[in-house]
């Protein structure tokens, strides 16, 4: 018997632009992508949720500040609180921070310019559901494209996050002014990850790098294990 395809929800907000890439990427990695409209009050049966990148609600007020109140976000918060896997990419990361599901906040890049290029990343932890296919200390090349990726937490919060090992990915060089080059953060429970780089744009070496597939296939595998555990 072949193992079942896990069902991964891709949330579509008005102004999202990476939903199709995210859907294509998880499908290429042997998962079933299920689009979730932002006005849906309830989630279909899912094994994981991806909040893709884009400019939800025009990035008005602060990035992610308005998307956080979308009806689907209430269901996703409940899903996360029950231990469901949630991955936020770029704008998805901003939304998760605004929603309080992840610590910190993403501010305007220090340079004030939009950054769009491949960046080197270091995997700080390979024991999260999103990094099982990686090694500790592994270098990945994954593109970023954002104007507000400058992650910040105050000293006390940052010390807590370090002590609990919640920093999962760091830039190997300065990219946007992010505190201690933080690129990706996981919640305390370990089931919600946000990152600024776009793994869904790096799943085929034809496009420069396939390192994003390591992260997304980790997610697909973790989702599959959960799907099997339920059956």
């Amino acid at each position, binding site marked *: 018997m072949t193992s079942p395809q896990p069902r991964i929800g891709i949330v579509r907000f008005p102004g999202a632009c990476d939903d199709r890439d995210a859907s294509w990427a998880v499908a290429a990695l042997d998962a079933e992508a299920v689009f979730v409209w932002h006005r849906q009050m309830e989630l279909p049966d899912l094994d994981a949720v991806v909040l893709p990148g884009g400019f939800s609600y025009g990035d008005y007020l602060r990035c992610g500040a308005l998307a956080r109140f979308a009806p689907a976000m209430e269901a996703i918060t409940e899903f996360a609180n029950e231990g469901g896997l949630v991955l936020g990419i770029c704008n998805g990361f901003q939304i998760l921070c605004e929603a309080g599901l992840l610590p910190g906040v993403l*501010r305007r890049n220090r340079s004030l310019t939009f950054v769009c290029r491949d960046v080197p990343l270091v995997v700080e932890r390979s024991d999260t559901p999103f990094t099982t296919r990686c090694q500790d200390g592994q270098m990945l090349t994954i593109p970023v494209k954002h104007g507000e990726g400058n992650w910040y937490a105050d000293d006390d919060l940052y010390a807590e996050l370090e002590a609990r090992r919640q920093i999962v990915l760091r830039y190997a060089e300065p990219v946007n002014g992010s505190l201690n080059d933080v690129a990706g953060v996981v919640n305390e429970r370990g089931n919600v990850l946000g990152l600024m780089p776009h793994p869904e744009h790096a799943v085929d070496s034809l496009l420069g790098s396939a390192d994003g597939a390591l992260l997304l296939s980790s997610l697909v595998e973790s989702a599959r294990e959960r799907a099997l555990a339920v059956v």
Partner: protein
Amino acid sequence: MKATVLVRPKQGILDPQGQAVESSLRQLGFSVEGARIGRVVDLDVQATDPTAARAEVERMCEQLLANPLIESYEIELSDGTA
């Protein structure tokens, strides 16, 4: 009542927008420092009692208008006749 909310980057928080504008002002020949950029939100609130109106706008700030990690806010109220 009319309410005006001023949202500012907190003291000590890096404000690259303010820095960029400050450097442009200097290029124009102005001697300035400490430029900080925030935002203004004007609101008409239904509450007519100033205490109730202020409490309501404070809740708006806490829940949406400001991010307490990096921003502070100030509320100004008027009866709208001015």
